[in-house]
């Protein structure tokens, strides 16, 4: 990457760390972020070392793989078992639904392919007569690409299993949970590139928490944390843009236009959390012919979303950290995962396990 955008020099790190210490709150403060990439950056760069002891920084439901309901995965598998070529982002391949993962199904003979881009699914569909289903998972950063797929002369044998989710409703849902004790949000940078700042203000108008949009370079994150602490110190609760180079208040009109044209909101289920109103996307009527659910006649058994003893639901709602789960790093490891937070590469448990996130050094 160009050094113009590599923000990690230790001198500025020290300066921002000092700023954070100066702004240290007198009482405990829980900051929640909702982006696996943020958790990766925080843990890989060892950033928790810079936080005052009373400031906790937790990952909420920021891993799209972790929050995709078991039923969606079961549905994708059922379509593949019915003979479809199922295209999925690589991240989804090893997360189990109620029983199997897509990778298990592939080992059993299903035609399941990982793609790096929605465009790849279109290309695959053009090269075969077989039914091709694109498993569209991800948040607002990823949904516009699915919209392009829907608008770009999709071949008749291509359909979409839509499983996109929206971040702002989830932020509200978390705040409405008892015992959440969320003091501030670090909002996801690239979701915000798409949606801008306004949705946070709209969704959170009845809640009084600081929200700062943060980038992903180490210094971006320290900067955003400092802005949060400054708001907290000053008793302010507003939405602040800590990533202006990549985020405009109005977001990306082109990307938003694509979303608006192809999708409408729906009440959808988040694994480990439950149904959150208006938190997902579904295809608008002009695009319903692309809906994979309409093309395949499937009956699925009741899903089992959560495993007894597994604390993913608490971890996903930022009420626990991975090391609070009795299974973490003992029975549940990336090599033998039990819950989705350990399987998803962006899941808190997976990241903590791999990068030693259990204690700041």
């Amino acid at each position: 990457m160009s050094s113009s955008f590599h923000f990690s020099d230790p001198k500025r790190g020290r300066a921002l760390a000092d700023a954070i210490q100066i702004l240290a709150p007198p009482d405990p403060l829980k900051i929640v972020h909702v982006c696996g990439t943020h958790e990766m950056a925080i843990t890989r760069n060892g950033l928790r070392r810079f936080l005052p002891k009373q400031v906790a920084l937790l990952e909420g439901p920021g891993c799209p793989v972790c929050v995709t309901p078991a039923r969606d995965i079961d549905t994708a598998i059922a379509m593949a078992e019915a003979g479809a070529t199922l295209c999925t982002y690589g991240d989804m391949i090893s997360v189990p639904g109620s029983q199997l993962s897509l990778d298990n199904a592939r080992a059993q003979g299903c035609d399941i392919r990982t793609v790096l881009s929605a465009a790849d699914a279109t290309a695959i569909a053009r090269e075969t007569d077989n039914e091709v289903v694109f498993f569209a998972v991800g948040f607002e950063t990823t949904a516009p690409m699915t919209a392009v797929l829907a608008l770009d002369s999709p071949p008749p044998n291509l359909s979409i299993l839509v499983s996109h989710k929206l971040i702002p409703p989830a932020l509200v849902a978390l705040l409405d949970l008892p015992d959440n004790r969320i003091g501030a949000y670090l909002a996801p940078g690239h979701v915000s590139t798409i949606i801008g700042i306004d949705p946070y203000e709209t969704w959170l108008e009845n809640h009084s928490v600081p929200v700062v949009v943060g980038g992903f370079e180490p210094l971006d994150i320290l900067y955003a944390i400092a802005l949060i602490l400054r708001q907290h110190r000053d008793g302010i609760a507003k939405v602040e843009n800590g990533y202006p180079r990549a985020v405009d208040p109005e977001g990306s009109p082109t990307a938003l236009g694509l979303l608006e044209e192809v999708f409408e909101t729906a009440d959808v289920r988040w694994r480990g959390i439950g149904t959150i109103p208006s938190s997902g996307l579904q295809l608008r009527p002009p695009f319903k012919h692309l809906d994979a659910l309409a093309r395949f006649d499937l009956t699925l058994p009741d899903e089992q979303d959560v495993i007894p003893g597994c604390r993913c639901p608490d971890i996903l709602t930022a009420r626990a950290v991975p090391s609070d789960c009795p299974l973490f790093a003992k029975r549940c490891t990336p090599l033998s995962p039990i819950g989705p937070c350990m399987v998803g590469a962006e899941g808190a448990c997976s990241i903590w396990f791999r990068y030693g996130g259990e204690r700041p050094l």
Partner: protein
Amino acid sequence: MTSDKKGARITQLHGAGGELMGELLDRLILPKLGRATAERIGLRALDDGATIACPFTAEGELVLTTDSHVVKPTFFPGGDIGLLAAAGTINDLAVMGARPIALTLAAIIEEGFLFVDLERIIDSFASAIESVGVSVICGDTKVMPAGDVDGILLNTTGVGIARHAVSDAGLCPGDRVVLTGTIGDHGMALLAAREEFNLSTRLQSDVAPVWPMLAPLLESPSGDAVHAMKDPTRGGLAAALNEMARKSGTCIEIDESSIPIREPVLGLSELLGISPFEVANEGKAILIIAPETVDDALRTLRAHPLGTDAAIVGTVTEAYPKRVILDTEVGGRRFLDMPLGDPVPRIC
């Protein structure tokens, strides 16, 4: 001869010990690998075994190593399975502190393998060992029916001799950690070459025999100051450092900003989301060196073309026994743990 025909392929008869196998040896193997050596019974004798004149001196240890190579793709940016096999074995001996003195080479070839490809592979192998002054003294060829093996498999055994072999566990607190060059080149180059990623880069594998770079240091009086060595192949730097920490019971603290790393490797790691610390290196070594001599050692390494980027990257301590710590560029700190598995299938 059958192999002269364009598009000629290996058949099962070539492995059967008869005429065709004789042709294969005479026309391909012996001309490339059978250079005259001091050995009384060497490759050209095509005997059941080969001899090595007893190299024992009053002090010294014989070092053996063996490796099987199944890299895919067989021909990759910067090398091929032949170079990889030769370098891999020479490097295993080198990081034990042993001067390579002889190699064996066994090939298991799939029926249908192209002669010209086999020729390229043998040429690569031959050039690599020639550059180090070591010979193949015996070998074996097997041909398997199509489908029973994927392309070609090579096995090499290396014999070397060391005044005093260097383990990977002799770390002492206070020792400095030296890397002989940039990290992540081989693993990332092979990843980038995968068709499905549609990437184009000039990044090449770093595969190379490291003995010529290490010999001046190891065979000098300062050689004793090298307390431990390892080559960071499968599992990359992270795996090698963790093994060294575990075996020695020490802590290894690494300074992220000192690790030499090429820009395309960084670019690929951002693009693909794979850490450059977890992918294989095939032309590098980790040396653990006593602090008093490390600056001289560094100068010696840098004098060789393969060592121009050699750098001190860390220190052995007792902070967290058996663990590896990374001091991150921005000033943070975290564990650098054993990777879960080789992120790239079959690269060595």
